[in-house]
Structure formats: C-alpha cells, structure tokens
C-alpha cells in the first residue's frame, strides 16, 4: 500500500486534522484545479487550515508544500490560525464609509477589545475587515459567519451582541 507508507513518512498530524483533510481530499481531489475547493473544505471542517495539514494536502493533490503554502497565504479568506467561535467581517469599503463605517469600526473594536485579525479573550469573536459585502444599499454592513447585516449602527451592534450572549 503506497498510501500507507507515504502517510507514515508525513510529520505528526493530529488525528482530527488528518481525518478532516482526507475526507475533503478524497471527495474533491479529482476536480480540475482542486486546491481552492479543498482549502475551503478543510477550513469549513476545522475553522482554519492548520499548518500541520499542509504536507498532507500537498501529498493528496500532488503539489509541493510550497505551492500549498503560497496559495493559503495569498488569499485573505484562508486562515492558518484558529478563529473565534464566530467571525465578524466588517465592511471597510467606500459605500459603508459614506454611512459611518469608520465610527462603527472604532466602536466595535473598543467594544470587543480587539483590532482587526484578532480574537476576543474569551474566544467568542474574531474581527476581520472586508472590502464590500455587496450590501452597499444597506450600508454600513457586516457579516457574521455567513449571516449578512445591514444598516448597522453602534447601538444596533450592541443590541445584537447582547442578544448573542443570551
């Protein structure tokens, strides 16, 4: 079994990571240009694309580790570190700017006690900037995981946060 021998030669991979990656690669690796779908699959399963998964992804797709690394680092969406339980994507782009996004951004950062790309101390929220959510007619906008929100005010954010906590 060639596969088993190869697997043995890979560096230590936590069992959950190995299982998640193989589930995804077995399902998707025959797709032409499979790397992005695979990375999406891994991130959907684990919440991020762990460093430890790179050699396995590379082997399964017949790519070099450098290729896989290069792709993960190129795209803003893929993360190599664990995120909070929910990710808040706050729009920083022009339409939202014109409707007070800068004030909202300041408020949210202060309220959560984090800057962009950081996770709250309790592990609940990661804050990420995003450049347009296509909700510019309801600016300012944000997306929490894949839930879109529009006409967000500082007060509205606080109310949402309070409702989340209950």
């Amino acid at each position, binding site marked *: 079994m060639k596969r088993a021998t190869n697997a043995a030669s890979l560096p230590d991979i936590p069992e959950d990571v190995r299982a998640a990656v193989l589930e995804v690669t077995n399902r998707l690796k025959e797709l*032409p*240009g*499979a*790397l*992005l*779908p695979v*990375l*999406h699959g891994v991130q959907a399963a684990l919440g991020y694309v762990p460093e430890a998964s790179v050699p396995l992804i590379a082997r399964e*797709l017949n790519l070099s580790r450098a*290729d896989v690394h*290069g*792709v993960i680092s*190129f*795209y*803003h*969406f*893929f993360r190599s570190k664990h995120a909070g339980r929910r990710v808040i*994507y706050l729009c920083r*782009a*022009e*339409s*939202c*700017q*014109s*409707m007070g996004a800068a004030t909202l951004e300041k408020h949210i950062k202060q309220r959560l006690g984090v800057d962009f790309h950081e996770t709250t101390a309790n592990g609940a929220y990661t804050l990420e900037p*995003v*450049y*347009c*959510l*296509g*909700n*510019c*007619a*309801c*600016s300012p*906008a944000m*997306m929490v995981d*894949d839930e*879109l*929100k*529009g*006409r967000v005010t500082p007060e509205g954010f606080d109310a949402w946060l309070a409702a989340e906590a209950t």
Partner: protein
Amino acid sequence: MSITVYVPRDAGALSVGAEAVAAAIAAEARRRDADVRIVRNGSRGLYWLEPMVEVDTADGRVAYGPVQADDVPSLFDADFLHAGQHALALGPTEAIAYLKSQQRLTFARVGIVDPRSLDDYRAHGGYRGLEAALGMSGADVVQTVTDASLRGRGGAAFPAGIKWKTCLDAQADRKYIVCNADEGDSGTYADRMIMEGDPFVLIEAMAIAGLTVGATQGYIYLRCEYPHAQRALEAAITAAEAEGYLGDNVRGSGNAFHLEVRIAAGAYICGDETSLLESLEGKRGQVRFKPPLPAIQGLFGKPTVINNVITLASVPIILDQGAAFYRDYGMGRSRGTLPIQLAGNLKRPGLVERAFGLTLRELIEDYGGGTASGRPVRAVQVGGPLGAYIPVSQFDTPIDYEAFIAIGGMLGHGGVVVFDDSVDMAAQARYAMEFCAIESCGKCTPCRIGSIRGVEVIDRIVAGTVAERERNEVLLRDLCQTMLAGSLCALGGMAPYPVLSALDHFPEDFAGAAETVAS
C-alpha cells in the same frame, strides 16, 4: 384560494430583517386561519423600502415597506391581504415611480419570480433565448450578440461579440465558459441581485455561450462573501440539470454543457480575468500577461469565454427579442441598458436599470433623493474603488462609457457611491492607496511598493507645513504617474484615479493641519 405574499430572500433584504418578517407573516396567518402562500422572491432593488412585502391581489401586486416583524399584526389588522390601507402601504408595486420609470431588460424578472422555480422562470419568458439559439448556428448567435453592441459590464466594456467570435474560431479539444461573479467593486451589487433573484437567466446564458462557441464546461467564479448567491445558484443548477437544460445533452441538442460554482477566497485582484483563471486553476491569483488572450488560451490553456454576470445575463433577452431591440436603447457607443447601483449616502439607494444616457444628476437627485443625512452631496465615486471622485460640477455627465472617460472617470460595473459634505477627501485618497497596497498581487513594483509609499506621502501632506505639502504633492503626482504607466493591470494602473481626482477637485482637504490651524 390562498393569497400569495412575497417576502424577499435577497441577502440585502435578509440583512435588514426579511427572515423574521417571513416567519411573522406565516405565524400570524396560522393564528388567524388565513390561507397564505409565502414566496421568497428576489429584491425589486428599492432597498430603502426593504424588507418590502408584496401581496398578490386581483388588481396586481401591492407593496408594503419597510416592514419589520412587529409590524405584521397591524398589517393583518389592516387587511393587507386585500390591499388594505396601512402606514407602510406603498400602493401597486409597478406604479412606484422609482420602478415605473426604469427600463428593466436584464432585470426583467428580478423581484417578480420565485428564484427557485424553473416553472416560474419559463412562465416569465425564461429559456426563450436558449430555444432561439438552438435553432441558430454558432456564427449567427455571435453575430446577434455583436449586432446588439453588447459591451462587457464587468468594467472594461469590451464588445462581447468579438470575444465570443475569437473563442468560436479557436480550434481546441476543449473550451470553457467562465462567469466572473467576483463582484469586487465596492458600491456594486447587481451581480448578486441577479444570482439571488433570477439565477436561471445566468444559467441559460452560460448554456447559450457554451453551445455557441463549442464549450462543454462552465464555471461560475463566485466571491466567498456571497453565500446566499451560492445557495441560489446551486439550487437552480440542480433544477436545470433535472430538466435537461444542463448536462450531457442540452435540450436534446446533442451538445453537452456542465456548470459548476467555484468559490473565491477574498482577493480583489481575482476579479481580473487572468488572475481569476489562475485562481480557478488552484493557484495564487497573480495576473497573467496578455497575449495570449483568454479567448485563445484561457482556463487550463484552453480557449475560454470569460464574461461578467450582467454581460451574460443580458444575452438571453437579446436572442429572444433580437439585436435591434436591445441596441435601440442607449446613446453613442453605449448601447442597451445598464443596471446602475445607487449606494452610499442616499435617501433612496437601490438598483436602477435604464438605457445609457441619463445623467448622474438624475440618478442622484431624482432616484436617490439626495443624501440620507440630509446634508449636501459633495462627491460621488463611480466605478468602484479604482473610479475617480466626481464633484457636483460634473453631475450632468451622461451615463455613457465614453463620456465618463472624457471626464477622467469610468463607469466600470455601474456602482455609484455618494458622499455628503462631511467626507474628508484626503482620507478617501489615502484609502485608495491603502486598498491597492492590501490587494496588490505583488507582480509589479509600482503597484506593490508605490501604493505603500502613496499612503505615507498622503500622511505627510496632511500633517505637514505648506512647504512640505507642496513638495509632497509633487511626489504624490509623480508616484501616481509611475503607477499609471508601470502597472500590468488596472489595480495599480487605476488606483491613481481616485487619488488624483481627489487632489484635483478637492485640494482644500489636503491642506495640512498646520494651515488649518493657522487660518
């Protein structure tokens, strides 16, 4: 007989509470024993009225909005199911001035049909374009698209017919149709509205393109910020496959066409067609040199038609109604209609599809109703983050590709973002450079490094004395020239437009802190 109530499932409508409204209507109907059928339509594009609820009555659809869940009991009390009077009543939907004055060709069905229903699509003229194409040769379809003078709606305004012809004429064992659904430009959402509100039109269009040029595989490259569109597209693809509109033998024509949605990963540059192809191939989204043109050597090295969502979605009606029908709309070399997206600080932001030729002023004042804040309009950015800032003195410019180029701007994907007089144009210029730095693919130095320098120079202009400001302004203009001339693609090559237009039209905002204090 049950009464049909429409509550949009459009992401924008959901973002302001449409889901809760739909649930409240269902619950209240049950409580009152009312026989109600709820259809989750797309948005009509009147976003300041979202969530906008419509009721099907004997006299056509009537609208209520913006509705929140706690308005629902009072709507029932007012007998909205029979067009009853209510504070939120808007009257017959089609009579709302904002909608009535539009010329909806590409958006003909959006907000009207159930986007999950193929029957509804066909009942509203769907698949007539494909039926027409099936009776024509590829060359004839290309000729029709060419005669309609359809230009690419993704930004570059390149004639679609020429692109299709190049791909048709290319000899290869395999060809591809790629839909650019990356919709990265801020201030734009027309692609999203089509994909969520009328996904079958895009599927029909891509099948037409495939049959026309001899491509058997299509990909929709969809930005990852659009999960709602993804769900709508995937549901529609499944339905189209089940009825033979996609698959090994499209409508018994003997031709195969398969379609798949691929999700992007948050890089603005992947909206550039060559970068997008790299990304689809599973690589870093770095821009390719052209030639070769994608129509000759595109995805996986094969001839590829790559078009924007709106470009493609405009093809079925052209084939159904004929080239002349479409071409008769518009002005100059800008033919047909443009779905314009009004955004930013406006009382009535929303989608306005009109023939080319109306002015920016009509859009901002008549449709948009002025600013949401009630303050005077000061600047408008048209065409996304790389578009110029336009001052009020140029508001009589018509919506026309060439007219915008003439004032140093661009129409791009048709996004219009309005700012009131509280805007700081130096901050907007700084943001344009910052955005370029964040999103640069890294291939060219003027773009990668120049944009970072640009941010620093603008900071020095704003912080400095008069002498420093003058010196740094020269530097900034030089830098912009270097980026304009030395960039491979429009990211580095056009990021100077918002910067220079801010500097040219709003120099007072760059007056240093020292000066402001002194004056």
